């Protein structure tokens, strides 16, 4: 290690006002190592993806003069990240640039081959890999060849190392909040009780990555919840678990932690639920947990499409789950995706009609992104899928849904959901 502290900058483009939980984990994990903690200075920098300017980020980087730059990559921010990396390489050619995140992970070697500015791509979870990279670059411990879970540039070649199994015991990753790496803030604080997803939806990156779920200990979750809910300035926060009502036992435990810690009527917002599994008991736990709003499917209301993309869907159970949550005063946001294989224009219309019939608080419509690491990305031939290989990977057609119809369906759905979402908040007075 050099005498003065080595500077490491972790940067992401997020939704306005949001921190990156992922970068918080990476920093917290790295600082767990006493030598790293003593000899490096790690900074996290978040820019608004909508308003953040690449040159503004570049200016900050030139001021900070990092010795290592880590960039968090999502489909929505990748163009900016690549532009930034190219510019950084021009100004600071010796600073290694490491990219990771869901946009890069599954195709890290391909990104390196196409983009000379990138030095290392992380295949999957970044915490342990990034620590090894810090050791390698600053303590000269090990070689890039020996770090599993990365692709790296070696001369003119790109080398793809073996994948690294994910961290089994998630408690090995210190909490970014409990360690002070991230500061809880109202509305933009994210907690997590487990990683992975029990489902295998064809359009989603989460479930396809690893089999099995990994949990943080309840003690750890409790400590984080108590920290967040103990702050009266935090009115609401989020859990980023793929399915908040994973199973009755887990839900019961998390709900009791949240209920016991809730002194200031703090609310949980836009958590993801498996709606077909929502019954009266589930709703009771959601209420106990202080859930104000949930986000859920159905993505499409066409059973045939659901089957093709490997998703479970029962329209009647789904409708019942939505109704039960609404009756308990929980806002339900329904998501729809335009462009799924199996759908077409009139099937999209049917999905919008189905979703509107459930009377959710909001309908969120999006266009299919065929993301790296998803089964749609890996097996496009099965679905006749055509899509842009570059981010944000918009679909341009599939075997049932030609582009002209996708375009029309987007116009239709945007107009219809905009009208639907123009609803004013519920307001009732007595007679």
């Amino acid at each position: 290690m050099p005498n003065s502290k080595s500077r490491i900058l972790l940067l992401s483009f997020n939704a306005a006002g949001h921190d990156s939980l992922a970068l918080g984990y990476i920093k917290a994990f790295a600082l767990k190592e006493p030598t790293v903690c003593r000899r490096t200075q790690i900074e996290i920098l978040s820019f608004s993806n909508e308003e953040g300017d690449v040159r503004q980020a570049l200016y900050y980087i030139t001021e900070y003069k990092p010795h290592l730059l880590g960039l968090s990559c999502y489909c929505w921010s990748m163009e900016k990240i690549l532009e930034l990396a190219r510019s950084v390489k021009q100004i600071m050619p010796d600073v290694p640039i490491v990219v990771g995140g869901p946009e890069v992970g599954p195709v890290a070697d391909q990104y390196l081959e196409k983009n000379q500015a990138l030095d290392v791509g992380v295949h999957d979870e970044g915490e342990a890999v990034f620590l090894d990279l810090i050791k390698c670059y600053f303590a000269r411990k090990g070689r890039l060849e020996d770090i599993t879970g990365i692709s790296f540039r070696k001369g003119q070649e790109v080398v793809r190392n073996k994948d690294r199994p994910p961290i089994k015991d998630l408690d090995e990753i210190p909490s970014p909040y409990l360690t002070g790496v991230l500061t809880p803030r109202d509305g933009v604080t994210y907690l997590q009780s487990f990683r992975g997803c029990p489902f295998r939806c064809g359009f989603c990156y989460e479930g396809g990555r690893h089999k099995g779920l990994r949990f943080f200990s309840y003690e750890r979750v409790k400590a984080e919840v108590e920290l967040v809910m103990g702050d009266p300035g935090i009115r609401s926060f989020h859990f980023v678990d793929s399915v908040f009502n994973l199973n009755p036992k887990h839900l019961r435990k998390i709900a009791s932690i949240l209920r016991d810690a809730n002194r200031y009527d703090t609310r949980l917002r836009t958590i993801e639920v498996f709606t077909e599994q929502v019954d009266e008991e589930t709703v009771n736990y959601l209420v106990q947990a202080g859930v104000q709003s949930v986000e859920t499917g159905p993505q499409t209301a066409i059973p045939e499409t659901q089957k093709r993309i490997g998703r479970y869907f029962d329209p009647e159970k789904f409708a019942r789950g939505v109704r039960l949550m609404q009756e308990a005063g929980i806002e339900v946001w329904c998501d729809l995706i335009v462009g799924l294989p199996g759908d077409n224009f009139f099937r999209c219309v049917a999905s919008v009609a189905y979703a509107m019939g459930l009377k959710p608080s909001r309908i969120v419509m999006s266009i299919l992104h065929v993301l790296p690491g998803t089964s749609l990305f890996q097996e496009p031939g099965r679905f006749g899928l055509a899509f842009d290989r570059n981010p944000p990977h918009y679909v341009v057609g599939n075997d049932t849904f030609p582009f002209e119809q996708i375009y029309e369906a987007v116009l239709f759905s945007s107009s219809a959901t905009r009208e639907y979402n123009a609803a004013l908040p519920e307001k009732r007075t007595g007679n």
Partner: protein
Amino acid sequence: MTLPCCTPRKLAILYIVCNSFDMITYHRLFLGSQCDNDCLVCPARNDEKNRGLTELIHEFDALDDPENIELWGGEPTLHKDLVSLISYARSRGARRIKLATNARSLAEWDVLTSLAEQGCRLFEVKINGSRPETHEAVTGARGSFDQTIQGLQNLGTLSSSSKEYGSSIYVGARVAVCQANFEDLTSIVSLLISFGVDRIVLARRGSDFLLGEAAQMAANAMKVATLNRTWSVCEGFPPCLMKACEMHVAELIQPAIQERERLKACRACAYKDICGGPPEDYIRKRGSREFRAVSSSPYLEDLRHLLNTGSLYAKQ
């Protein structure tokens, strides 16, 4: 078409038949017949008679689910108690209050903002021409075009620049397609696109023009809307005249079982169960030669599913 002696109830039924396209079900509240336009295509007679606030409140209170209401009839903005009615509806649970208007009064910024303030955030503006001479040939009211345009301008401003109302303002436009304006449809749509409307409905009115010709004009106009990322639909044009435009036919997007007696040509049509067929008065006047059975459609199974989806969510 004139219906001089329509009762409000008859008018309401007629209106529901004529104004079929809405993914959201609105309870339509008829406010009266006072109007500052005198449209060729309007079934109502402008007798300046409006319903009283008490009667309207009584009707509103009788609604099972007052979440979505549409205020229509005559020109609602001329009703002296409109703001009070909106305020009442909002206080009693209405969340989407839509105004079917010619937007002339909305040329006054204060009128528009007072409606928005009370909770009216959805507007369906009736416009019938891209130029004063076309629009006013339909409305029969000199100066109406400029006011409607100013109203649309104000709605656009409210929608795009207002932090308070922005995302909750929805502006649809409704064009009554008739003899006087069917050749102007593309220009009307282009004009509406410039105001950033959220949806355009081209609704056939009357039978004094060749439906096939008007259908072609409507199809061209809707293509212009699509190319400019604006959603549009047509109403009252049988699908057999709208080939390659099926995705914009309101009767297919919201199919309903039709039990009318059919023309011979229609009996073999793929859409026979959900298409009401050409209008009867049109057939009497011009015959049925334009209409040909559609032999097959790739959408039939999906339309059946749409019908079932409708009945599924109706049960919730």
